[in-house]
């Protein structure tokens, strides 16, 4: 069964460093999303992406964040200058024509 994959599974970085989180959505899906979950808290929406542009973003998704679909398969989330409070599990999701969003296993980001 097709699934969303994410790399790396874990990333440790120093505050102020740039990180790129990678996702490979399900191949025929056209809608892509990033969510994050700070330890012990709710899963929060960050951004949705369709037709090569951002369609919706949350307050969390400030100028430090960017998303890109550099080729036909990858979908990336970049954090330009990480802060301690960016430490969280980041989930990529994708969907096809139906409403169900399929989530990847997540990347656990730790900012020191």
């Amino acid at each position, binding site marked *: 069964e097709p699934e969303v994959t994410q790399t790396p599974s874990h990333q440790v970085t120093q505050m102020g460093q740039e990180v790129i989180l990678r996702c490979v959505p399900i191949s025929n899906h056209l809608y892509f999303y990033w969510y994050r979950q700070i330890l012990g808290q709710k*899963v929060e929406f960050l951004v949705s992406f369709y037709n090569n542009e951002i369609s919706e973003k949350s307050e969390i998704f400030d100028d430090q964040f960017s998303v890109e679909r550099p080729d036909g398969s990858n979908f990336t989330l970049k954090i330009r200058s990480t802060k301690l409070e960016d430490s969280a599990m980041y989930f990529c999701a994708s969907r096809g024509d139906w409403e169900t969003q399929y989530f990847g296993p997540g990347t656990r980001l730790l900012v020191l």
Partner: protein
Amino acid sequence: SQQGEEDPQALSIQEGENATMNCSYKTSINNLQWYRQNSGRGLVHLILIRSNEREKHSGRLRVTLDTSKKSSSLLITASRAADTASYFCATMRGRGGSEKLVFGKGMKLTVNP
């Protein structure tokens, strides 16, 4: 209560018993979805119920939706130890690529063998 808040926050039952989780929300929705998360892992989609549906079944899962009360419940029948996980309800808002899922805090279910 907050958007998509589950009740109770934690539930511990014996294998074979049924588990019921409730979720409340505040705004109008397109649909409501339930997800499961095993400890530290990804979110697995369980079931989706649309705003014009009242009840839906999938295997041992039964979901109800009451839009007048802005609430939903997830029933897991004949629970198994493998059902131990956190369960989240999520409401979908927006349309056409601009939609987003708004998640509740989650409910931790422990099924004891």
